[in-house]
């Protein structure tokens, strides 16, 4: 009985999440855009960590067997929330294979579509170092995903000069310029990011951050400056400093 309900259930859940995120299924870039302040406010955990294991499995979630991918991260630094040093979380769906163009594959955006995949969900490989902005667990506290799907997952890159840079898969577009959409914050609640102003960031000079340079830089941003601004946002909204639980 369960078997026949699973695909419908999964589709329904996925559709609900997609609708909530403003994401038409056919276009993964058409997701509600989050600026950094609203992204931080929407996440209940923000941390830097390195992916250590990836496991695709099925678990009983909300009265149905659901395809999930379990990711384990060694957490190095917590900016928001209380996060254990070794964190395992689940995201809906298995990772989508890259389409080969051969055989009868149903393909969307270069990936093979199946009932077990969740298009647009951020994916990580073992060894990836990322800054993750995770939404509160849902479906009975069993699954989560980064804010704005791929938007809230920032890869950390080590440059030859020693610089550490971060960017998400849309080149950090809109981090300081996307208007507040009211998902978690309204423009009137803003303390740090002001998309409508000429200078889209509040005064962060006390943090040793050149705010003007930060908001005007395309693409990757310096990791430390980025994290300082996120910490400032957390504090500005009355949040306590993130805690790494041993």
């Amino acid at each position, binding site marked *: 009985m369960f078997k026949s309900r699973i695909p419908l259930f999964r589709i329904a859940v996925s559709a609900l999440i997609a609708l909530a995120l403003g994401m038409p299924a056919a276009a993964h*870039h*058409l997701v509600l855009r989050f600026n950094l302040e609203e992204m931080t406010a929407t996440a209940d955990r923000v941390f830097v960590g390195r992916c250590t294991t990836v496991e695709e499995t099925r678990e009983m979630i909300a009265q149905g067997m659901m395809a999930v991918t379990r990711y384990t991260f060694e957490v190095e630094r917590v900016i928001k929330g209380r996060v254990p040093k070794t964190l395992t979380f689940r995201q809906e769906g298995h990772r989508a294979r890259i389409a080969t163009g051969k055989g009868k594959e149903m393909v969307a955006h270069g990936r093979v579509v199946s009932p077990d995949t969740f298009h647009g969900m951020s994916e990580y490989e073992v060894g990836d170092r990322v800054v993750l902005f995770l939404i509160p667990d849902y479906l009975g506290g069993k699954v989560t995903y980064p804010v704005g799907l*791929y938007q809230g997952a920032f890869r950390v890159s080590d440059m*030859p000069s020693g610089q550490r840079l971060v960017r998400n898969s849309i080149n950090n577009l809109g981090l300081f310029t996307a208007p507040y959409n009211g998902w978690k914050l309204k423009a009137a609640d803003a303390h740090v990011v002001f998309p409508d102003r000429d200078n889209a960031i509040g005064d962060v000079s006390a943090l040793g951050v050149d705010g003007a340079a930060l908001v005007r*830089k*395309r*693409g990757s941003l310096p990791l430390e400056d980025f994290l300082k601004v996120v910490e400032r946002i957390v504090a500005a909204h009355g949040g306590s400093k993130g805690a790494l639980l041993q």
Partner: protein
Amino acid sequence: MKKLSSLCECVLLACAILLPSCRSGPSAQTGRWVAGSPVAEVNLLGVDLIDDKNGWAVGDIGVMNGAVLRTTDSGKTWQAVSKTDEILAAVKFISPTRGWVAGYAGRIQRTDDGGLTWKVQRAEHEGEVLNSVFFLDADRGWAAGGSGLLLLTIDGGASWEVIPTGRAEDFWSVKFVTRDRGLIAGEDGLILATVDGGREWAAQSTGTTRALLGLAAGADFAVAVGEKGTILRSDNSKSWSVIDSGTDETLNAAGLNGAVCWAVGSRGATVGSADGGRTWKPAEATLQRDLMSVSISSPVRGVAVGRRGAVQLLSPE
């Protein structure tokens, strides 16, 4: 008295020659930038003019979708000629009909009808970001993007080969001046040069770790521009000199036509050179919005585009 008169004449003549170059911008012969009408609220990321009249612009997407825009009047007006559901960062045309776009999904598309319809040549690769696409002719092209991603085609884009670069830096701009000689500019002060059409690349010494976001290359020289007003110039693609740009704003893009070069960037920053990139001067600011891309079709014609549909036009004085 006659000597004094001759001296005055000389002084006046010198003033007549020198004064125009004292004005903002490189010189009177390079045209003047004026603010164009904003296209829309959407961020524009790429622009390409193939002549003084015809060009295309691409960029971010709105709530429902985005568009490829076309101008036939030097950038004064723009028409949406086709829709897109992908963030497009780069556009390159080689004729009024044939061009390519690339964007933040690793997808490359080609048009053979001026942008009305597009054929996907390289399927979407989730997580891949393409920042730049360049074609020398109908066959040979390159696309460059995040985390050292470089693609090469020799059949007009029908097939794309991934060229291993071994680089972690994001590539921001790829340009070729011949089938063999090309350059890439990227994060962390990176400039790569090739002399074999893009199969082997050698990192050049730049002396900076600032991101190099724009690149313009001519037959005799090349300039790379980037964070905090950085401008580097080279005569041989190997040794690069820091040039005073006259601005601290981030420069996002550069374009050239002959010896005339322009670079544009944050808060409408626009700096120009009329001597092959040796000396630069800021132009009068026409708008405060960040400019992300520039295309120069002649010494007195060009278009720059940017955030919230910003358009800036280079026009003859």
